[in-house]
């Protein structure tokens, strides 16, 4: 798994949200994106997922250009901002509907993933009545349940209690496999240091720093 971002610039309503981004991301690593609010972390994640297209430059995933060769990455699981689920269905029903699109997993996997994030798969409560933390957990479960090759988690620890944060941390660490790229954004430096092999700092749409674990240990 290889992601290449070359001279990527994105303008939205005359605002430069990403400017000349150059990045090479490879499988088997967890990359952490840090930066102030509005620095471009979420936009960069959207760019990698194919949800936005560049003003100039490109994103290449396994030598296929997003927006040219493919519309979206072949295998991606994303939690970006507020996850969109069907309000009237329970968590399990929502995940089942999503799982039926690609038919990669069965009910058992959905149940296991829900338990791992700390949700009760037998809970009949509709998504509309979920707390913020529960919605976040469901979003994480939806992103991870199909073992995607690109895992994008935008601030996954938002609204989670301490125990849930630990659960999610373990899940993210277990997601680190040779053929998978994990992209994570977080405001908590401790979480980033504990989880990520490389940290990429953004400011005003530009990459201002890139630290690898090796360099941090030095």
């Amino acid at each position, binding site marked *: 798994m290889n992601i290449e971002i070359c001279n990527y610039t994105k303008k939205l309503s005359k605002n430069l949200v990403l400017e000349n981004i150059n990045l090479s991301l490879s499988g088997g690593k967890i990359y952490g994106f840090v930066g102030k609010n509005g620095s471009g972390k979420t936009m960069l994640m959207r760019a990698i997922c194919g*949800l936005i297209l560049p003003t100039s430059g490109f994103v290449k995933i396994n030598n296929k250009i997003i927006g040219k060769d493919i519309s979206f990455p072949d295998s991606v699981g994303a939690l970006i901002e507020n996850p*969109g689920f*069907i309000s009237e269905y329970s968590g399990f029903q929502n995940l089942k509907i*999503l799982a039926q699109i690609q038919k990669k997993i069965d009910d058992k996997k959905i149940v296991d993933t829900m338990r791992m994030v700390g949700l009760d798969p037998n809970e009949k409560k509709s998504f509309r009545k979920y707390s913020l933390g529960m919605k976040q957990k469901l979003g994480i479960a939806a992103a991870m349940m199909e073992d995607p090759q690109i895992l994008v988690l935008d601030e996954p620890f938002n609204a989670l209690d301490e125990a849930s944060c630990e659960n999610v941390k373990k899940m993210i660490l277990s997601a680190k496999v040779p053929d998978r790229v994990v992209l994570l954004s977080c405001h908590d430096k401790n979480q980033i240091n504990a989880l990520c092999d490389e940290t990429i700092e953004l400011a005003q749409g530009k990459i201002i720093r890139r630290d690898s674990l090796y360099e941090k240990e030095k």
Partner: protein
Amino acid sequence: MKVRLFFRLLSHDITEGIIHNRKFFIFAALLFIFIDFVYWHNISLYFSDYNSVVDCGVLDFFMNVFAGCDPFDPEANKGVDIPITWFSFNVLPYLFVGLYITNDLQTSADTFILRVKSRYLWWLSKIVWCVVSSTLYYLLFFVISTAFTLFSGNFSLTQNSLITEEFLELSTYGKSMTEIFISSVLLPWMITTCHMTFDAIISITFGPVVAFLMIVCLMTTSVFYCSEFLPFNFSMLIRTDFCAINNISIYTELEVAFLIIVICLFLGLPIIKRKNII
């Protein structure tokens, strides 16, 4: 694989856009009951002096909605005649088309669209959803109108020529039941559908509020001005060749409406391809 993905998307649209948006259809049903009740009551009063009972058929209710009005004639020394029934029936669907489509694009992006992996399939699903929603809208009116004819004790799917000619002042002389059905049901349905697809394109480009306002402007302009370039005219019986031989043929109008749907489908493809899903 693409076909299966498309039907998954369509199923999602029908669930979210129709079943979970049922409040809209409930409101529509109430409006239809009101429209039909007022018409049925007016017919009863108008023909109360007749020796025999004059009952409405289902098509009478459709013809009441789509009778339309004469275009504005500044030299006629007449006030503006706005067909409120026609207006309220027609404007309602556009309130929720744009809102659903833009809301779905924003909320379903990281769940459905990333799994379906095709912007084009998403757009195709929305166009088909417009057709399905429009069909359900008209079916709902059909069911409510049928209920009224059953309630009156004289069930009839057709129209009553006496009502059409005396009350609506529309001549059905020489018109086959097929022509009456096409003019008062099929053609208006096609017009609603083609404008829903137009609303969809404008919504994803400029937003649902702009789309709705454009539709209202088109409808209002159509009331005042009769032109083949304003398709809303085609859903008024009085402005088609149903009423006057020199007006545009209903079959041509059906083709134009179908063409608009196809154009909107293809026009939307490059728009959705470059659309930022934020």
